[in-house]
């Protein structure tokens, strides 16, 4: 096969991947929502974490018994935060009046869990 043809075939195979951002064919809207929220957080007095060495030390600390004596002092927090969100409504959904709000897990964002 001619190398140019092969290149074009290869390129066309890549195109769908390039052209499929989140929500590509779905009835969705991408939002940046300013959210003002208040909460009673906790003042943990954890070790400073500004390097890999600090972080490993923190993980060690938080994973062992010595962590049991940490502070539980209430720390009120308040602020306005920008939250990235995606709202999808099915075009012809009979149950579109039911909105699911999904919250992902640790270490990922809304694409993952």
């Amino acid at each position, binding site marked *: 096969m001619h190398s140019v043809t092969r290149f074009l075939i290869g390129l066309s195979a890549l195109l769908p991947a390039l052209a499929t*951002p989140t929500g590509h064919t*779905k*009835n*969705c*809207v*991408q*939002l*940046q*929502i*300013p*959210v003002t*929220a208040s*909460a009673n*957080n*906790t*003042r*943990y007095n*954890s070790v*400073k*974490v500004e390097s*890999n060495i600090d*972080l490993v030390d*923190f*993980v*060690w600390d*938080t*994973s062992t018994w010595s962590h049991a004596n940490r502070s539980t002092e209430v720390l009120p*927090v308040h*602020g306005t*935060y*920008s*939250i*990235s*969100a*995606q*709202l*999808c*409504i*099915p075009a012809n*959904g*009979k*149950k*579109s*009046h*039911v*909105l*699911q*709000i*999904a*919250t*992902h*897990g*640790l*270490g*990922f*964002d*809304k*694409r*993952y*869990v």
Partner: protein
Amino acid sequence: MGLALTRGTFRTGKVYRVLMVCYRYWDPELKPEEYSYVDAALSKGYSILTYDRLGTGKSTKADGYSEVQLGLQVAILKELTVLAREGKLLASSKILGKSPDKSFNSYKPKKVVHVGHSLGSATTSGLLSLHGNLSDGAILTGFLPNNQSGKVGANAFGFEFARQHDPRRFGDRPAGYAVQASLSSIQQIFLKKGSFEVEALEYAEKIKQTGTVGELSSALIGKPAAEFKGPLQVSHLHPMRYGSWVDKSTSTSSARTTTLSAMVIATTHMTWRHSIVSIPQRLISVYTCSPVQAMVSLFRLMLRRVMRSCLPTWALKVSRELHEFKLQERVKGGGICFSVYRFSMF
């Protein structure tokens, strides 16, 4: 990622376990028809809001010690829920990309169902405890509140300091932000060999995000959810390698039920799903509450495996539809009914 049966052991007086790995995403670019929970929800006619929790993705990278903790994550989920319920999500937001059709502007849901995974389940659980009246029903996946919860902690993730680990991707993360260091550290806590595609592991690494010292220090909000009166489903979907973890006597079915029941005292309907079997496009639960139920579950599972290998496609389809119907029956309550296949793990 398909079906992955690991083991099934009977223990006298103990629950029977068929631990399965099920690996799903809210909305990945990788094989969305296979992995996207958003696609699945939409195809069933439900609307769905997903968001980047504080400190991840395109949301604010707030202070990693004092701000990005479970308490504030719950408060943000509460505010998002209020905005959604009042039909003000779009009016109060900056819309990125192309404008949606007009139905979005007037959209005001009649029911809101909260779905969480892992720390997202802890966030959702906190919402039920503190603002339970804002939720009509909830599903908590990858969630096992019990006194063994310290067993899988920060030390299981293989974290590095985010900014130092990858300045290109995480240069905007301040002090106190952690990220899983490698493909292997992601595999170690999320995935069992033989039950996942390498592409999915690579994709997970590609889109990985940070967690904070504040989140890793946070304790569950264990307050009773007196105002939550909807149905609740709890799915524990730990990977198989945590078999030994969930087998501990302190996390028996009764201990779990007691712990969570104390939190959701007013729920109308609570269901436990300890095991998930995934087949393409569908997940099937295997209930493991008593030896008798376990035997029934095992029989069904075997039957299903036999069917998968022997029966024509149309028969499989009937079987799946039938099962989905049953599944929906189980979570019906409080006037809502939603399908609960395609769960996520961790």
